[in-house]
């Protein structure tokens, strides 16, 4: 039986359909989860897609973080549930404190839309275990606020050698 995966839809999400389609292609049973829902409907994993949740007003992800569904996502993650944030979804997770750090406006002062090479730091996670090796993955990025920031103590806690986590988190 196909694994059921939820895709959270905020007002302003614009990659939710792509994400549902990609999950279908990967053999999952993909379902939409509306941001006003307070429960996740028993899904095995949750994806927060890209876009501009709540117009990205104040800061990207700042308002989306207080959606009813985010309480359910936080509880799900605290219980060991798998949560993936793509692009704006990652910004929402950062604002919600589910991933450490914050995303600043790009240091280059420009919107960045291009392909980047990402080297998986580990192959023993649910997201990377199907990869044959740690060779770079080509991934598209598109963001105006993609400059990852965390203080040194946070980076030390993530990984003593900062370079790798920076590369993995956002290139």
């Amino acid at each position, binding site marked *: 039986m196909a694994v059921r995966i939820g895709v959270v839809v905020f007002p302003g999400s614009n990659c939710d359909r792509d994400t549902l389609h990609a999950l279908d292609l990967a053999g999952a049973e993909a379902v939409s989860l509306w941001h006003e829902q307070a429960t996740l409907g028993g899904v095995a994993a949750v994806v927060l897609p890209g876009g501009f949740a709540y117009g990205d007003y104040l*800061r990207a992800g*700042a*308002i989306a973080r207080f959606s009813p569904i985010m309480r359910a996502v936080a509880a799900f993650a605290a219980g060991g549930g798998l949560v993936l944030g793509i692009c704006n979804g990652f910004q929402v997770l950062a604002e919600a404190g589910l991933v450490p750090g914050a995303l*600043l406006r790009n*240091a280059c*002062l420009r919107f960045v839309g291009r392909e980047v090479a990402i080297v998986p730091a580990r192959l023993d996670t649910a997201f990377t275990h199907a990869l044959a090796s740690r060779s770079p993955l080509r991934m598209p990025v598109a963001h105006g606020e993609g*400059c990852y920031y965390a203080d040194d103590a946070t980076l030390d806690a993530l990984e003593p050698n900062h370079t790798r986590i920076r590369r993995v988190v956002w290139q």
Partner: protein
Amino acid sequence: MTSFRFAVNVTPKPGILDPQGRAVEGSLGHLGISGVSGVRVGRRVELTVDAADMESARVVVERLAGELLSNPLIEAYEIEPLGAASSIVGVAGVGVAGQA
């Protein structure tokens, strides 16, 4: 209940990269302005709180400023009381009527 008007000024914390400030600073040459540095761009949010007194109104604004209006990892905020909310109505009225 009384209405209290506040402004919350949110700015990037010292040491945090501020590309907006840098862009503004970089444009000063085009205006023929020199001798200006340390530009930091933040945002100002004005709001009205209905509360029994100033102290309880301030508690609400503190929570709002710390949890939503700013991200404590990268931004600092400052709360500025603006006095009684009723004084603002006139200002809004002028704007609606289009009389500058």
